[in-house]
């Protein structure tokens, strides 16, 4: 049974047993916020401390009995305060109206431009360029100079946290700065685009939506891979794309993988994406990571020893967002807690910041995800087949089992078709070597890892 489903049933049961006012006051805004199957503990979220104290002391037995009737494996119920449960939508309306009427400008939230959706904090000036993003940056800057003429569409792809959004927004901001109001820019995430399509279809306002997207000079869509498989959205996007393209309007698109690797994308869209310029952003090398850290420190006028920055740059390799996370933590410790950071402390911080949570991943998941990634049948992974297209996925699965789950070599061999432990050793060595030598291969492994962690 679904978690929320269980709780709904429990509430239904309890509603019959206690008075209506009591139910409305104490339990109406409750929700189930977690279920730990291992210990059999249910976490129930309540809107305030009063409700928490009351429910704990008066209704605990009722709740426990009721929940155990539904699911015998649950042993206990715990309560927490979840303040977001409590909302008052009426107040919101009034004050937002009030605020719109005044010409008073505001101190704090200037951030996002409501017309273009661009966040001014992303600029080319604070975008670090290295070998990993050189091409994409050059293409973006060329676009700023001649909108719609040079590379259209521009398709940028790369893994999570490598700076796609930054580059896209910087391009938009630069165009706005250069041409002021002569050019209209619209930045949008594909999720927002999908929502707009759904909204337009539901309210029969497709004309409004068409106007919004087809009247711009530069359309920037982030994370396009999400529209794959959503037929109506793809179709709408296709028409928008064509209209803009025919009128020589600039289109910039980003994705976490190249167009060919978005399996659910329609052929006609794919071929259009490939018609322009495709540029990738790969993992930053050590020098670039160090440059990012140093610029960050300089911009915030913070002094951190070079040795520490070098260590961070060498240890955090996967993703710039994590790099910034670790950097911010180090700054926090040095500035606010006045703690000197040494190698050991740094390792601790890195460990905290980069939470690789393999706890839910099983050997079976690895086999399945790897097989899905290479589009080979899961059953083939454990057969004796030594066809090239199955050998590599199998070796990668072995490598990941070793690397993430720390399984023993004999165990790994056993899992993948009763192979000898030496086969597993060989696979792991071969893959780790390939990773260091072949960046494209490394990227493949990273994508698989991402899928595993996202499960």
């Amino acid at each position, binding site marked *: 049974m679904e978690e929320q489903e269980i709780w709904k049933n429990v509430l239904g049961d309890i509603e019959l047993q206690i008075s*209506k*006012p*009591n139910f*409305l*006051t104490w339990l109406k805004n409750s929700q189930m916020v977690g279920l730990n199957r291992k210990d059999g503990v249910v976490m129930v979220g309540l809107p*305030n*401390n*009063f*409700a*928490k*104290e*009351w429910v704990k*002391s008066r209704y605990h037995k009722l709740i426990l009995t009721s929940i155990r009737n539904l699911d015998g494996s649950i042993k206990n119920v715990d309560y927490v*305060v979840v*303040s*977001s449960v409590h909302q*008052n939508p009426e*107040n*919101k309306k*009034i*004050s*937002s109206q*009030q*605020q719109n*009427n*005044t*010409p*008073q*400008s*505001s*101190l*704090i*939230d200037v951030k996002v431009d409501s017309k273009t959706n661009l966040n001014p904090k992303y600029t080319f000036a604070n975008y670090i360029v290295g070998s990993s993003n050189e091409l994409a940056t050059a293409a973006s800057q060329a676009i700023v100079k001649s909108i719609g003429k040079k590379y259209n569409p521009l398709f940028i792809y790369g893994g999570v946290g490598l700076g796609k959004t930054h580059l896209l927004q910087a391009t938009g901001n630069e165009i706005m700065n250069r041409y002021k109001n002569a050019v209209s820019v619209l930045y949008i995430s594909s999720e927002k685009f999908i929502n707009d399509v759904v909204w337009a279809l539901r309210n029969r306002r497709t004309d409004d939506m068409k106007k919004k997207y087809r009247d711009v000079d530069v359309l920037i869509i982030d994370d396009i891979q999400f529209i794959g498989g959503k037929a109506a959205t793809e179709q709408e996007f296709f028409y928008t794309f064509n209209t803009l393209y025919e009128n020589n309007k600039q289109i910039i698109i980003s994705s976490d993988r190249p167009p060919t690797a978005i399996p659910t994308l329609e052929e006609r869209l794919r071929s259009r994406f490939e018609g322009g310029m495709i540029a990738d952003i790969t993992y930053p090398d050590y020098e670039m990571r160090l440059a990012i850290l140093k610029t960050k420190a300089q911009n915030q006028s913070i002094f951190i020893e070079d040795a520490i920055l070098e260590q961070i740059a060498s240890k955090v390799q996967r993703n710039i967002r994590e790099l910034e996370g670790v950097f911010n933590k180090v700054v926090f410790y040095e500035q*606010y807690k006045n703690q000197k950071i040494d190698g050991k402390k740094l390792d601790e911080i890195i460990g905290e910041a980069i939470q690789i949570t393999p706890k839910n991943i099983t050997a079976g998941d690895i086999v399945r995800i790897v097989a899905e990634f290479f589009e080979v049948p899961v059953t083939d992974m454990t057969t004796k087949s030594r066809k090239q297209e199955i050998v590599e996925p199998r070796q990668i699965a072995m490598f990941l089992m070793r690397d993430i789950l720390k399984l023993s070599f004999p165990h790994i061999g056993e899992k993948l078709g009763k192979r000898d432990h030496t086969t597993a050793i060989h696979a792991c060595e071969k893959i780790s070597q390939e990773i260091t030598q072949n960046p494209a291969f490394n990227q493949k492994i990273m994508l698989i890892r991402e899928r595993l962690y996202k499960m």
Partner: protein
Amino acid sequence: MKLIILRTNLLEALASVERAIGENLNLPILKNFLLRAFGGKIEFVSTNLEIAVEYQTAGKIIDEGDVTIPFSVFYSIVRNLNTERITIERENNKVMVTSDNYEGVIEDDDPKEFPIIPRITDMSRFLKIKTERLKDVLRGVSLSVQYSTIRPEISGVYFNQSNGALRFVGTDSFRLSEIVVEESGFSSTMDDFSLIVPIRTIQEVVRMFNGAEELSIFTDSNQILFESENEKIISRIIDGSFPDYQSVIPKGFKTNVVLDKEEFSNSLKLVSTFSGKANDVNVRTGENGKFLEISASDSALGKSVYKIPAKIKGDGFNAIFNWRYLLDGLKIYQNDEISLNVNSSDKPAEITSPKEPNAIYIVMPIKG
């Protein structure tokens, strides 16, 4: 339960718990207060499920016990009685209020139905501060706080303890005030912390604790407790992160205008008669740098201009402000001499007082 209590003590207790008497159709018991008499202590409790107030007072306990009494009925009885000593007794689910020549009987509710007041488990760490100082500071910063809940993270006062100082900040995103209590002004055994206390709670704190010299503050992950010797208020804290307000405070100013506070405040009130819906008044520096000109005009009403003598340093400026916001900024300061610091007509301006360097008020001009 039976006890005898002096009318004056009773009135004080009722005035205190009145702030948290609730109006809740689902839970009528919130209109009651809880009276507890145990271990020589008489305690009054009320809650509206947002905050809870507890008040301790002296009296003679004859039988221990507890009772809940509808506040408004009880209060109007006590207010109109004119005898010193009042006896409160609970018997057979009825509350008897008696004095020399009066006897009232009130139907009561089961005390077990009264909400349980949440506690803070770790009472070993706390912060101590002089009551009047805290109340002054809270009065000052709460003027800037946003009252609606459209952005919950600024609908309260931000408390921050770090680097040996205690900061209080309020903002509604148009203006912001910060008052710092330096190391000597408080003592704390708490780790550095920051949290946001709802403005409604702050308003009650400012009205409570009359006569208490010192307050203790306790917190846990989602609530805060203010406590004096005989009075307590416990409230939730706002879940959210306060904006990075430090970055909004300008580092320097092009123009610095030193003024008399009273005169500035009078001029604003006078000129404002002609200001429009946005409360806009025009503030500009005089040609010779000797005065500040405040003016407002309305095409239907007319125009008014006020010139205040001022010491002006730096460039001249011409900006539009909400006069209420300027006036609120002046209220923070006790001193007569204040300084209005301006960069340009579209950048944040600042009101400070040279003799009170621990307070800052930032205000955004109105777009011209």
